């Protein structure tokens, strides 16, 4: 196993329990915003998409796949964050 892989595995080992801890603290009141926020965060795949689409010496195929992936993940990012914010704006503690 390369050091790279080993490091990545350590990151995974630490990130999973962190995620479980963080999410368990979220009140059920906000479970829908939580889902749409994590939904937006899952579009971090945009990073991979950009790397594939813009790489030096990329083939036509990987450029096309990469660009479609960038479009798709950007849709996910934008709609995910905007809808989350739109929902959270509505949560108020006291009636006006």
């Amino acid at each position, binding site marked *: 196993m390369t050091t790279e892989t080993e490091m990545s595995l350590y990151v995974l080992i630490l990130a999973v329990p962190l995620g*479980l801890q963080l999410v368990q603290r979220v009140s059920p009141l906000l479970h829908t915003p939580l889902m749409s926020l994590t939904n937006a965060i899952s579009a971090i795949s945009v990073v991979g998409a950009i790397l594939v689409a813009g790489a030096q010496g990329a083939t036509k195929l990987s450029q096309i796949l990469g660009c479609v992936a960038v479009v798709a993940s950007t849709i996910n990012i934008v709609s995910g964050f905007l809808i989350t914010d739109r929902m959270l704006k509505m949560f108020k503690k006291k009636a006006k």
Partner: protein
Amino acid sequence: MDQIWQVAYIFAALSIIGSIKWLSSPATARQGVRAGQVGMLFAVIGTLLRAEVVDYQWILISIFIGAAIGAPLAYLMPMTAVPQLTAISHAFGSLAAALVGTAEFYRLTPTGFTMTALVIETVLGYLTFTASIMAFGKLQEIVPTRPITYKGQNFVNIALLIFAVSLGVWMIVEPAPSWVFPTFTGLSLLFGVLLIIPIGGGDMPTVIALLNSYAGAACAAMGFALSNRLLIIAGALNAASGFILSVIMCKAMNRSFLNVLFGAFGQVQEGASTAMSTKPVHSATAEDAAAIMAGARKIIVVPGYGMAVAQAQHKLRELTDALTKRGVEVRFAIHPVAGRMPGHMNVLLAEADIPYDKMHEMEEINPDFAEADVALVIGANDVVNPAARHDTASPIFGMPILDVDKAHTVMVIKRSMNPGFAGIDNELYYMDRTLMLFGDAKSFVSDIVKAMPAV
């Protein structure tokens, strides 16, 4: 650490962790969204600055197109359509993961560890893509919401999955013939469709959470394939989040994962429903209901998916206001699986300006039903069915329910006596203390408000 992009990635990771942390309370939740946006911005800019990225033109055009589609999607969808929107948004994200995996496969044709990561990334990406589209179709009611089942369905699904995984293993062990990867892709796409077909609308909260988890896992796998730790962190957080939510949903229905995925819940139980439907019920008019509510001290409202369908949340707020003015205490009891996604009811009530300190979780409010003068059930069915407590033959036996039947008077707003989504009859409707209010939820609540005697 001499590279700007590495610094940007570290800030991105910190912001993303912070965003979920801040989401834990409504007071800091919007700050959480900001942090998430900042994190994503760092990730994108950092990536664009990497030396490997040389061709910007098409990337920027693609980002622009994506934003131009995503923004109207988020602003134009009504709040009741949030579950659909989440599902379709998921479809796009996982498609991106799958396409990146495909491109990497054709660029590197790797074997061994990198290929293992790519296989996991593409199988999860493609199956989540089609599964999310199917889930969208069911939520939007383009595809029939009732579970579609056939003989040997589970066998077909599992065989298909085993076949796809074997092809994946083949590609990991050695460079496989050129037909293998496309076949593997096709099987993953098909499996996603078949996975959702037998799932009914009532199980959507669990399934959407599970798909969320898969999308995260696909991202983390991509992180391994690209040696990109930011992807691993964000993917792992996301996978953990989806996993916990689906566990919570399963617990709230007293069912296992396998049962949700392969149990085809919610088929019509012909025998049970016809047997009970002949029993008499007490029905009441809006005037009767208004008079009882006006004289009550404590009212607990139990909203369900029917409230979302009828868009009754705004009228419900008017009713709450009218009652509060009379000094009646009105609170809302939210079952974890009410609606079509986790927390669905809270969002709709918040949309209608109902303050969130009036919304209570099941464990918190269940002891208070005994002291409530009126429990008003709007568009909820299975989550208030007392059969879950004692009827071992009932498909919902063992599911934790809201103890609505303990209230002094129970009122149920319902279109007709047709059994609800799951096709299970509800003994609550036949109790002596239960008044059935037949009609459309929105107009009936509106009628109650009008009939409310002046203060």
